[in-house]
């Protein structure tokens, strides 16, 4: 009886240790909790000029390539438009108040499951789940990197921030145990993203890869 209790205790401790060590913040210290303001993080949308990306979107065994235009059209509105290389518009999302609104979608993509996924993933890429949200801010000892943790229902979003540039280098979306999505960013000297890569883990087969080809 005592032996099985000990065995259970050991396994539980091991499991707790594994879960804690799996948390992205385990080597970081909680510094503060507060609402994330625009000035805290460098935005993906450039307020001065549009960004043009070569895009590859792989969703449910279908592969779409084309161009994505990201442009702020007024002080509170931006648009993300996906067109094929040959010029046909595939979808257009309006971004306002950290929400995405579908303005146009080409018929083959107009399926609730695909639209919902795209909306959710583009929102994640554009950091719309970060701004104006209550976040726990963890900091590394060196102070160079920090993590903003935002909890939404059962999911936790971890934003890895370069404290010097205020850019998000990586985003991880985790369930209770497993990572669900991962976004990686690489920036140029002007702090515009040159490469963005989103990948789902598990059953959802969706991948978005963007390469900046803007001339500005």
């Amino acid at each position, binding site marked *: 009886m005592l032996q099985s209790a000990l065995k259970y205790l050991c396994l539980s401790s091991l499991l707790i240790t594994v879960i804690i060590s799996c948390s992205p913040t385990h080597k970081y210290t909680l510094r503060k909790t507060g609402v994330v303001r625009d000035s805290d993080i460098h935005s993906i949308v450039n307020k001065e000029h549009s960004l043009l990306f070569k895009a590859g979107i792989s969703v449910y065994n279908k592969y779409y390539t084309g161009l994505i235009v990201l442009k702020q059209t007024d002080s509170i509105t931006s648009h993300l438009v996906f*067109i094929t290389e040959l010029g046909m518009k595939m979808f257009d999302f309006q971004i306002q108040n950290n929400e995405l609104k579908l303005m146009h979608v080409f018929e083959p993509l107009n399926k609730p499951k695909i639209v919902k996924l795209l909306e959710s993933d583009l929102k994640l890429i554009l950091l719309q789940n970060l701004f104006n949200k209550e976040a726990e801010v963890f900091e590394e000892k060196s102070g160079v990197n920090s993590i903003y943790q935002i909890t939404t229902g059962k999911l936790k979003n971890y934003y890895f921030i370069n404290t010097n540039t205020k850019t998000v280098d990586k985003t991880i979306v985790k369930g209770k145990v497993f990572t669900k999505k991962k976004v990686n960013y690489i920036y140029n000297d002007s702090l515009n993203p040159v490469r963005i890569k989103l990948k789902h883990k598990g059953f959802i087969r969706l991948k978005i890869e963007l390469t900046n080809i803007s001339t500005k």
Partner: protein
Amino acid sequence: MRKKKSFLTSLPSGKGRNYYPLSFLFLACALVLLPFGEGGRGFAQTAYQSVKDTVSLKSKISNMSNQTKSIESDFIQMKNLSMLSEKITSKGHFWFQKQNNLRWEYSEPYKYTIVINKDKILIKDENKVKKYDMNSNKVFKEINDIMISCINGDILNSNKFKIQYFENDKTYKLELIPGNKAMKESLKKINMYFDKNVTSVIKLDMIEPGGDITTIDFNNKKLNAAISSEIFMLK
């Protein structure tokens, strides 16, 4: 393991709808219909009036189509996203050879090539090449049929488009309005401009229902020059 499909093959062709990128479809049509000339940009936009003698114009177009064996030209494509007041410009080169060979190649600001080689369609995106069989896909087959009807001039009598003929002092303008409901959802109209001697297409406008326009200007044309068969291959 299921093979990953491209945009082209993944499009549903059932239920009476064909979702192939219509811009390409019309482009293919225009490419094989007429040779292309210089000076697509900057011609004066005076008022257009309906062409009175459409029979004569159709005949000129048909004659030219018959005389054209091959075309090679540079192109500049400008996509105007009306809501964003944003223009995306891409440049490239194309080759066409009768009967069924076409290479449409973007070089700036991205590399993307489509080749139609008889019954094969090849797409090169950066360094990845994908091959498709024209006959395996209803949409590809339709494109091919439209191309053929462009070559033999039947497109001008096609019930797929309502065609209107206009002219001003410098150019003719053909307005092609899709008759098919599925096409209409994606494309409102295509305008083809060509010089008054009917020697060449100088510009194409593809107008979407939402007001976005794709304009293609052609320049540095070579007509009926020899083209190596290797051009219509992709490695």
